[in-house]
């Protein structure tokens, strides 16, 4: 089974690499067939990643509460969200970010400890806490990519610059809608993750400087995302403002992940 997991990992790496390459090629050359092949490769990568973890979990090589699992789950949710929204909103170009991010998370996860040890805490709540946070991470990373694309495209149209990418990037409308839908989907997950995280921290009595910073930044992420959603609904804040708000939230979230990774490296597991 361990061999099956290794094979699935390498196939996943190859598939994500092919997807990333094809998305770049598609951006450079206006040929829709590249995009279709890239999306298929991304789908294969996602399947291989799920297969890898299924194999590792079945033989006890990986733990659902390990950082390794966490990063992989983020990659999966990111790829799955992209594939789900791609055709509907015509956001093919975001694949240029989605595929390399998935690849980075998949490969990065291999360098982390696979067997996290958590004691003195209800197992079900912990699983839900981790799953909610990491599915949310995948969705927010994609929302961040959509926001970055929005700002680039908006600036290009405002400054009236003619670039080789003209006509190959998604429409502003699509990018704005993508970002909004991903935030809407990720926000309940983030909220649950923060609440359950507070409970975890209190139960484990884990009041280190790192955990406090982590919590503070998680709250900041929540405030930014909530702000973007509320202001859009109440005051019609869309477009550039929403994109900046989303990027600020994603930046906070990335710092939280960095603290997790650093802290987990020192401690082993989540």
């Amino acid at each position, binding site marked *: 089974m361990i061999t099956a997991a290794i094979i699935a990992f390498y196939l996943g790496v190859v598939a994500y690499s092919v997807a990333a390459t094809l998305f770049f090629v598609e951006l450079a050359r206006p040929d829709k067939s590249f995009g279709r092949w890239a999306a298929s490769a991304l789908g294969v990568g996602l399947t291989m990643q799920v297969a890898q973890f299924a194999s590792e979990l079945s033989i006890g090589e990986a733990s659902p509460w390990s950082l390794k699992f966490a990063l992989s789950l983020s990659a999966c949710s990111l790829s799955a969200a992209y594939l789900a929204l791609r055709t509907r909103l015509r956001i093919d170009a975001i694949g240029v970010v989605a595929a390399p991010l998935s690849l980075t998370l998949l490969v990065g996860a291999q360098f982390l400890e696979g067997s996290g040890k958590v004691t003195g805490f209800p197992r079900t709540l912990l699983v839900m806490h981790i799953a909610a946070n990491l599915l949310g991470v995948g969705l927010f990373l994609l929302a961040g990519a959509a926001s970055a694309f929005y700002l680039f495209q908006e600036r290009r149209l405002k400054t009236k610059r*003619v670039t080789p990418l*003209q006509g190959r990037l998604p429409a502003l409308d699509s990018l704005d809608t993508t970002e909004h839908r991903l935030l809407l989907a990720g926000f309940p997950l983030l909220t649950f993750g923060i609440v359950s995280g507070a409970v975890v921290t209190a139960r484990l009595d884990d009041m280190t400087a790192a955990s406090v910073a982590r919590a503070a930044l998680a709250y900041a992420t929540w405030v930014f995302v909530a702000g973007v959603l509320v202001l*859009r609904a109440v005051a019609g804040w*869309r477009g550039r403002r929403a994109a900046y708000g989303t990027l600020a939230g994603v930046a906070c979230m990335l710092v939280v992940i960095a603290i997790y990774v650093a802290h987990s490296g020192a401690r082993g597991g989540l």
Partner: protein
Amino acid sequence: MIVVVGLSHRTAPIEVRERLALPADRVPSFLRGLVEREPVGEALVVSTCNRVEVVAAGTDGARSNLTDVARVTTRAILDLAPGVAGSLYQHEGRDAVRHLFRVASSLDSLVVGEPQILGQVKDAYDVARESGTVGGVLNRVVPRAIRSAKRVRSETTIGAGQVSVPSVAIDLARQIFRDLSKHTALLIGSGDMGETVARLLRHAGARLLVTGRNDERVRAIATAMQGEPRSFSELDATLVEADVVVTTTSAPHFIVELEQVQRLRRARRGRSSFFIDLAVPRDVDPRVGHLDSVFLYNVDDLSNVVAASMDSRRREADRAEAIVAEEAQSYERWADAEQVTPTIVVLRERLRRVLEGEIDRSFSGKLRHLGPAERAALSVMVEAALNKMLHPTTVKLRRLATDPSSRADLDQSIATLNELFGLEPDAVDGVASVTQSEPPDPALDSDLGSREAS
């Protein structure tokens, strides 16, 4: 090889091109009439608003006298339109092949890189096939030209970007609002270019509102474009509804002010607005373009995008020329090698017949005791021996055929073979006519299946 005779925007003004304009329903009869004139054996007509060209090949395939084919083709064109002689050009052989490849690849078009010409060449080929005026030569060269054009489109960005102000405006609208059918456009005024843009927006599915100071004119335009007329006094409310605003009035002052748009943005709840100001003097305060979620392009901005697209296409044209040259060269190599095919086929047939005759005689004589399996094995052995014997000759002839400097050697070799093996010219011609009626290359034919919209 082929000849191309015709005229285009490069040699003839529109009033001359009009004289040779060939309606689609008259093309088949013209083609059939042309191939009845010796020595023309195959023909097709590429007829667009910028060119009318006849592509023809002789009855003798690769060995046809192209000068005669061109002369007869020119005569047929002049019978159709006597006054165009001074504007006609003609290409023969390799020049004609390259010209056809360049035309299909849109390198000879008025707007380099425009996509319509490829569809028009495909249509011309289809019409000729249906008319029965396409044979071995055109069945090879035209699909190759189409393949070359497809390579140009997929390997270069020669077709990227828009090259007219109205199409650039629509392209930009699509970069802001993905699906225009879910959006509302407003036309203010009645300039020609504004109406063209509004018509394109309507064709893209946008709901169209029309307003202006002249109510009668507004109603007429709205009716013509299936839009909704709006009173100019309701401009503020109409601007709130509109996502794309096209202005084209002759007003000497701004008709859309900064403060007005600032005020209306709140009512639009952050939705993007795209102002296309086609008026000179301008209709929209340029400061409007600095507002969040508001995009403003005037005539100069749109013209700059057009100019950049044209520059880009010109740069890409060099890469496209290289592809066309490569494809044309590949075709020429193939066509050169094909010259010796009839000789090789006749020689093989002659030898096979002799050997089969001897085998049949033996099967009914000394070898009559052989069973079906042994007889089949003997036939296979003789066929293999024949292939081995002819292989060096075939290779040598094809090598001579593809080397222009070996023309005399090739002719000498063919003459020697004819003499030594008694290959009669009639027999060679018979084979040549068989090869001419071959169907087109299936690999190339599959290219024709994926037709582009034109």
